[in-house]
């Protein structure tokens, strides 16, 4: 694997979100690159909300039925030599939760792109049941995705093409 394919996935997911691919879940409007949370750096942070805009009827429908949740998507690509273990995954998740609390984010997606995900990390992600955080691991070689079992984790797989 070369690092550029992982970066290509990061760029592609960011572009999809910013161009409205995830709009059935949330409308992502602002994207930051190289975003730091505590001492951890994410490749991209894309922010938005669930109040989808449009013409009159869509606006009215959205205003009447959709709660206006603040949402975020954190994207991280791992270096070819980097190996993610359960402990470092937990550090990233803790940083995201603290950011969500500080910035009043109602729910988040967290996408990890890399190759050397061990079985322990895959099991840990698949077993996550946090309703406010959907996590997905993407193998940049095989393009295989493992997502958390929560509603948000399943939605990520449904709307974002890798």
């Amino acid at each position, binding site marked *: 694997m070369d690092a550029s394919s992982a*970066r290509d996935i*990061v*760029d592609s997911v*960011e*572009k999809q979100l*910013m*161009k*409205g691919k995830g709009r059935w879940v949330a409308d*992502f*409007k*602002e*994207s*930051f*690159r*190289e975003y730091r949370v505590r001492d951890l750096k994410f*490749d*991209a942070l894309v922010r938005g909300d669930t109040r989808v*805009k449009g013409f009159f009827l869509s606006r009215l429908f959205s205003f009447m039925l959709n709660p206006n949740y603040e949402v975020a998507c954190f994207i991280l*690509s791992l270096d070819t030599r980097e190996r993610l273990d359960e402990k470092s995954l937990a550090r990233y998740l803790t940083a995201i939760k603290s950011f969500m609390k500080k910035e009043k984010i109602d729910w988040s997606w967290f996408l990890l792109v890399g190759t050397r995900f061990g079985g322990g990390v895959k099991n840990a992600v698949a077993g996550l049941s946090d309703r406010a955080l959907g996590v997905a691991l993407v193998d940049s070689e095989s393009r295989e995705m493992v997502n958390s079992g929560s509603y948000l984790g399943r939605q990520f797989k449904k709307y974002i093409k890798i």
Partner: protein
Amino acid sequence: MKGHALSRVHKTSLAKICAAIFILEATLVILFVPLPAFQSNAVPMIGFNLATSLALGWIAYRYVSHLEFSYDGQGFKIKKGRRQVTSHSWSEFSRVSLVRSETLEFSVRLYSDGEFFEIPASRLKLDPFKFRFEVLELLGTPKS
């Protein structure tokens, strides 16, 4: 770094201004020209209306909303219409983001102490994703 200068016509804005002038002129004709006089001179009047709305639209567009953007390694300058000129140095800003408006137009947002300034990348016909990386490099943040 080599300087860049962009001055591209934003066709949607130009079309909107021309259409607004055409509708205004047509309304004036409906209100003040008697129907028999209009019926006998319909083609030349509509032709005149079209020609003047295009000419006045172009003048109004250049005067009010045409964007000229230039930048180099030190900073950038945006001129909107004939009067409004804004210039900033890249060093004034500490954070960059890419934002999408309700009309699906992208801008590069530059943050400075909680305030921000937006460069309308889509209106300038720049690739917003590539331009954002260029701005990140100009601010001294390496591309991922």
